[in-house]
């Protein structure tokens, strides 16, 4: 095992060399932030969640076995941190307003999209409207570069089921882009 591989570094963290977690942080804080950002679109929350992932890695370092890819293990932790955050909000009775807010397109915004032909914005909005479980698969595959088999490990599913979900997510995304386009054109 290369002494600077993710696994080797994490094994060193497990054995008490906590400074090596700094190297892992340098390597993965951006991909983790990007994952959370695509899921929630709240930069401040995303930074808290990245911190939470590394706190959990420290807390549970004794349970790290080195089986499988380190990133798969880390993103499983990231996913749990994300789920736990929204569960906590729900338990505390705080409504999750971001979905509603970000799905609403005000008139001005709509015009901007149409006038400037900003397809990117339209796609961004369509991605936000996608069901969370489908969005998660698209993000892990398209932005984080995971293979379907690895996504299946993170989401505790099967490779076949993930492929089907990816296809259906892309199909739904295509339909959402069309719908948004029509909504904008009718304004």
């Amino acid at each position, binding site marked *: 095992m290369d002494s*600077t591989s993710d696994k080797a570094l994490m094994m060193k963290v497990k054995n008490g060399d*906590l400074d090596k977690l700094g190297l892992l942080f340098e390597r993965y804080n951006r991909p983790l932030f990007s994952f959370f950002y695509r899921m929630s679109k709240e930069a401040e929350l995303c930074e808290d969640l990245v911190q939470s992932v590394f706190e959990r890695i420290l807390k549970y370092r004794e349970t790290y076995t080195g089986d499988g890819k380190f990133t798969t293990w880390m993103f499983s932790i990231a996913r749990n941190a994300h789920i736990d955050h929204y569960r906590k909000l729900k338990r505390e009775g705080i409504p999750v307003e971001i979905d509603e807010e970000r799905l609403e397109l005000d008139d001005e915004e709509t015009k901007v999209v149409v006038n400037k032909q900003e397809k990117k914005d339209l796609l961004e909005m369509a991605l936000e409207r996608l069901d969370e479980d489908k969005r998660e698969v698209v993000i892990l595959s398209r932005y984080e570069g995971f293979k379907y088999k690895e996504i299946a490990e993170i989401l505790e599913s099967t490779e*076949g089921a993930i*492929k089907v979900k*990816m*296809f259906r997510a892309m199909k739904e995304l295509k339909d959402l882009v069309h719908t948004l386009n029509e909504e904008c054109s009718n304004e």
Partner: protein
Amino acid sequence: MNEQHEQLIADYLAGSLDDAGKTKVEELIASGEIDFMEFRELEKLHEDLGSLLTPAPSKEMSSNFFAMLEEEKRSIKPSWVESVINHIRQVLEELTMPRLAYGLVLLFIGGFVGTQLNGDQSEIEQLSQEVQDMREMMMVNMLEGASAADRLKAVTISSELTSVDSEAIHALLFTLNNDPSVNVRVQTIEALKRWGDNERVRQGLVKSIAKQQSPIVIIELADAMLELELRNSAPEFRKLIEERTLDFTVKQKLENSIAALS
């Protein structure tokens, strides 16, 4: 569309289909079982997704992380028994099989050469110098390699050399200042520390401070300066604190280093 076709298209989008798979997709499109227009739209959409940008996290995120790490480190102070065990474990981890094999081969060659030359000291010295030169040349070449793993190996080789010439020092300093990998730069500092009595290395390490962006590399350099007692590095660190917005932990570390160097 059945699930098998859906899986096939998902594989196509991820770029993981082999030639047979691609042919299969083409056949299904030709037979109309996969709608060509829809397929093209999905392909385009998948491509367009790559154009969406993600903002960068703030610098506070990094500061918060390193503060948390420092706090965790403070809360765990290992007993001296644990420290000794950890050290032994680390030494054993370094002893990988290829290294052991390499060591044995060198031992055999040494033994063979020793018996052949029958105590001819000058020839042994000449031979060992040639081996040394070859390893040094190999290291310089590998430092220019495209893969970070190769460059890390090169840095490791440098730490096994008994002496280095100016070309090797130049290559290591160039790597320290320009390599895109943080790991390679950190290992290079470790390697250069071995030649800390060389004036060019000492000057190069000090000059490198201003060129580094990564907090880990800066901290590693601060440790190296203390170890090599490079007092002229203090103004460079001070400049860094004044001119840049550094993480709290890094700033604190540099202030401590400046105090120790003064």
